[in-house]
């Protein structure tokens, strides 16, 4: 894991054209290079080169790949993964051959789908008929038992079937079960074959029971026919799974190679390419290219200092264990090149905030279990779509659960009960007004704790910002900015004055020259920001009028002063929400505890407490998660995270690129 974003280097290489394919595959296999188009290189480097021209239609490859994916989808088959070893094994695919295979599969599927459709129509008809029979809606169906005079029974059976009726044999009789709405057609057929209805009531009764039995058997038979067709479709795809997987990998490798080669330019015998690589991989990449070209190549490295830092892609590496928190950072923005990696700080602050707002050993354990079971379920069913509890949320819950349990240990809460002694203070007792002794004995104490927690977070943000500014060599901003050193001093003095004021019973501020100097000197330095910046701009050739400088200085100072005062104050007080949610959590659990005592029945008590815990986990857990996110994004990130970076996206086997068309 890196504390800062990774140092990057730009590689420019010239290799023999006949080695290009091997180099491309080797670089994709490593997956650590982000390619830069040669058109984006300086003018003089571009003159003698031509753009890459593909020998096969990329669109046709993409279409074929999409068709294979569609077939896989129909067979409920997961897409294969490409390994580095596959890169060498797969060559440029023969699209004609693949098309023939896909067309053959499509023909089989279409044929079976047509069968499936016909079977389904019969199922619909039988189901409707059986439904009427079961509900005894005789006005909608008709049952006949009888004989025919004509001897061509196969013709009779065919015609009855095509009129939508069901024909069965019963001893020497025919039985016909039909919908009355089809009678006009059916009657014509019966007349033609001189149908004679059986007049014996006992035969009618027995035959009807038999017909019901047979039609229900028919219904089952049709259902199993349908399942068999479905299986045939799946089997027809599964039989070709390996072959299709191979083609899919070929197409995917081809598309990736084409994507990379589109960044290449060529002279008659050489290939030129360029791209960003983390500095730590410099030697490895150089060795790969040298190896693939048998040493016949020229490689140049450009240091990040030679390029505008805003154009250098940013690679952030965090420990695998911090992955869920990296997503929180990614969702916000990409850090600036060379700045601090916010992930470890977010991980700590997010879990700390959650633990303070949702502190309970039992509920934390449930959250952990939900996360664990969800993650295992997604692992077991990799094709499963993300539900309300997505894969990511399940992973995050596995961290928040233990955080909540730790909070529960500090505050002695288990499923809303104080079954174990608190390590710090009993939150329930404090909120419910019966705390005895201890460090905190009322809700004001809790508010004070969360405000102090907020101050720590804000100061951490300020210090991280100062480190970033020093690394970026932006010393003027470091001194003059509201999040710079002067802003920090003003904040520190403000906190000291406020705590003194509260400590004096809201009567007085510190009677010390430090307060005056602590405010006046930083304020004066911030006031100087305007003239100093004007002087720096003038030295860079952008001279401003004196009146303009004076106006800007006054205006900027007023705005900065207002922002420092209101911004820091509101950011700090914003942390009171941590206390608010913690108190709400305790209050809700207390309310459920009181409600559970009303029925005076132990079973009802347990049920009410289970319901209470479920509701609190769902509602409070969600609120605490959202508020922790909000505090990180707005109060913490605001101090040091500019989010102006460009994310480093090397091409690898997992890249989600398609065609470049």
């Amino acid at each position: 894991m890196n504390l800062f974003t990774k140092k990057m280097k730009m590689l420019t290489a010239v290799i023999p054209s006949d080695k290009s394919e091997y180099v491309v595959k080797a670089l994709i296999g490593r997956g650590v290079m982000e390619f830069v188009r040669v058109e984006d290189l300086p003018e003089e480097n571009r003159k003698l080169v031509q753009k890459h021209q593909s020998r096969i239609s990329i669109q046709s490859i993409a279409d074929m790949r999409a068709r294979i994916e569609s077939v896989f989808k129909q067979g409920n088959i997961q897409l294969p993964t490409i390994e580095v070893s596959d890169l060498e094994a797969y060559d440029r695919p023969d699209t004609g051959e693949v098309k023939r295979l896909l067309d053959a599969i499509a023909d089989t599927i279409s044929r079976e789908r047509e069968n499936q459709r016909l079977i389904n129509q019969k199922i619909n008809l039988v189901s409707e008929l059986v439904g009427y029979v079961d509900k005894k809606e005789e006005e909608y169906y008709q049952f006949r038992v009888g004989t025919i005079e004509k001897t061509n029974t196969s013709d009779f059976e065919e015609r009855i079937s095509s009129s939508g009726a069901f024909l069965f044999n019963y001893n020497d009789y025919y039985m016909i079960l039909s919908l009355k709405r089809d009678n006009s057609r059916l009657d014509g057929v019966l007349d033609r074959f001189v149908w004679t209805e059986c007049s014996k009531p006992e035969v009618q009764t027995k035959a009807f029971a038999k017909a019901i039995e047979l039609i229900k058997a028919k219904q089952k038979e049709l259902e199993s026919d349908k399942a068999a067709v479905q299986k045939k479709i799946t089997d027809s795809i599964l039989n070709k799974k390996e072959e299709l997987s191979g083609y899919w990998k070929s197409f995917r490798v081809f598309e990736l190679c084409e994507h990379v080669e589109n960044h290449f330019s060529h002279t008659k015998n050489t290939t030129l390419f360029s791209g960003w690589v983390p500095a730590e991989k410099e030697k490895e990449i150089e060795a790969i290219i040298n190896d693939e070209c048998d040493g016949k190549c020229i490689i140049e490295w450009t240091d990040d200092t030679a390029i505008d830092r805003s154009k250098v892609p940013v690679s952030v590496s965090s420990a695998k264990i911090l992955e869920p928190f990296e997503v929180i950072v990614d969702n916000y923005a990409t850090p600036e090149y060379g700045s601090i990696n916010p992930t470890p700080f977010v991980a700590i602050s997010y879990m700390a905030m959650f633990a303070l707002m949702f502190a309970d050993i039992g509920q934390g354990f449930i959250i952990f279990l939900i996360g664990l079971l969800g993650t295992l379920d997604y692992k077991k069913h990799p094709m499963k779509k993300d539900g309300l509890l997505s894969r990511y949320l399940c992973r995050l819950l596995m961290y928040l659960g233990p955080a909540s349990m730790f909070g529960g240990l500090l505050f002695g809460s288990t499923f809303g009960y104080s079954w174990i002694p608190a390590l710090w203070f009993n939150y329930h007792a404090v909120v419910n007004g019966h705390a005895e002794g201890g460090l905190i004995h009322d809700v004001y104490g809790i508010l004070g704790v969360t405000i102090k927690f907020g101050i720590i977070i804000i100061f951490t943000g300020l210090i991280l910002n100062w480190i970033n500014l020093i690394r970026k060599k932006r010393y003027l901003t470091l001194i003059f900015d509201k999040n710079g050193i002067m802003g920090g001093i003003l904040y520190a003095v403000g906190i000291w004055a406020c705590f003194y004021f509260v400590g004096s019973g809201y009567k007085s501020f510190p009677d010390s020259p430090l307060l005056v100097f602590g405010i006046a000197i930083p304020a004066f330095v911030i006031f100087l920001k305007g003239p100093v910046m004007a002087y720096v701009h003038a030295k860079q050739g952008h001279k401003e009028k004196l009146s303009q400088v004076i106006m800007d200085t006054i205006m900027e100072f007023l705005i900065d002063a207002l922002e420092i005062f209101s911004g820091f104050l509101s950011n700090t007080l914003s942390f009171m929400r941590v206390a608010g949610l913690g108190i709400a959590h305790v209050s809700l659990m207390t309310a459920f505890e009181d409600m559970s005592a009303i029925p005076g029945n132990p079973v009802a008590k347990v049920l009410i407490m289970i319901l209470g815990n479920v509701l609190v986990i769902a509602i409070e857990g969600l609120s605490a998660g959202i508020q922790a996110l909000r505090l990180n994004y707005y109060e913490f990130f605001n101090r040091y995270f500019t989010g102006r970076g460009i994310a480093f996206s090397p091409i690898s086997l997992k890249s989600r690129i398609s065609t470049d068309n």
Partner: protein
Amino acid sequence: MSDVSRYAFINAKLRARIGELHSNEIIEKMIKAPNLAEAVSVLAGTRHDSLYKVYDETGDIQMVELALFEEEVAFHRELIKYMDENTGNFVKVLMEKIEEANLKNEVRLWFAANVLHHHISYHSSYVDKEKIVNSIDYYKIINAISYDEIVKALEGTPYHSIFSKFSNKDISKFGLFPLENMLDHLWYERLFASFDDLSSKDEKVARSIYLVDVDIKNMLALIRYGLYYEFNKKELEQVFIPLGSVYKALKLEMDAGIFKLSSASRIIKRLYPDSAPILLSMDKSEHPELTHSDIAHKTLSLEHYLSEKRKKEFTKILSGDPFTIGTMLAYIFLRKAEDNMIKGILSAKYYHWEEEKIRRELD
């Protein structure tokens, strides 16, 4: 209730859903798919995932169409849940249009079985039999042996008065067109009456949208029945929906006895100048060489043009006041347009149309 509190939640929800409506990419993939099965599989994992599942289970695109229909009913019901009573009643009238389409399908099946003597057996499973707005026993209609049974099944619904105007004999003699035409008229009548329950701002939005809708319908009726089927003046007058500016202008000429198809084109040119070139190219007096198939094709072009025009108008509504019924009407229209596009492509794939032909018909 203020417009903001009435629409803040539902319109934000609908705007988000408009953003989720299928991109051209999905439609493009469906068109490019070489067969029906692959076209349907494009829908897997999208908002229409359920349609893919229906096809996977049945292999029947008519079942897919039924599922799409049921989704349409379900989303209207969902809209009602978020509306106050008056606006909810208006949405119910919009749902009656869907109910009317379902009823027409049922009656068409009955007609096929009892008048044309076709066997309809399994076809009944392609129509929705659940209650949409009014309590209609669809099983009674689909299984009716006589027309009177249908009329009886519709007692207590707004459609009863229309159905009771016809007899078995009328239906056998004239077919279902007059009945279906009167049902269309009934819906517009009920729709315009329901505007009175809306707030004045909503009423204005809804009225402006549906007055254009009526005009478009009358223009298409004029072309389809006037130019294509060559209806006489009296028959045409019965087809027109008696609302909107096109009808008003045509009626004036009809009453004055100076109505001609060429003058109708002039009226439409005045009211909807953009559509004039297509209309004029369909005038047989100017272009005697036109065949029926030419007119049919041009009618489709005009329908498509008018549909695009409506689409633009709804897009304009979306950029206007966010707290009116306009957002909901735009969503309903855009969603319906997308559903129709999906249905069209799936049918085309079923009949093995070439990619080019599908594009031509969609354009």
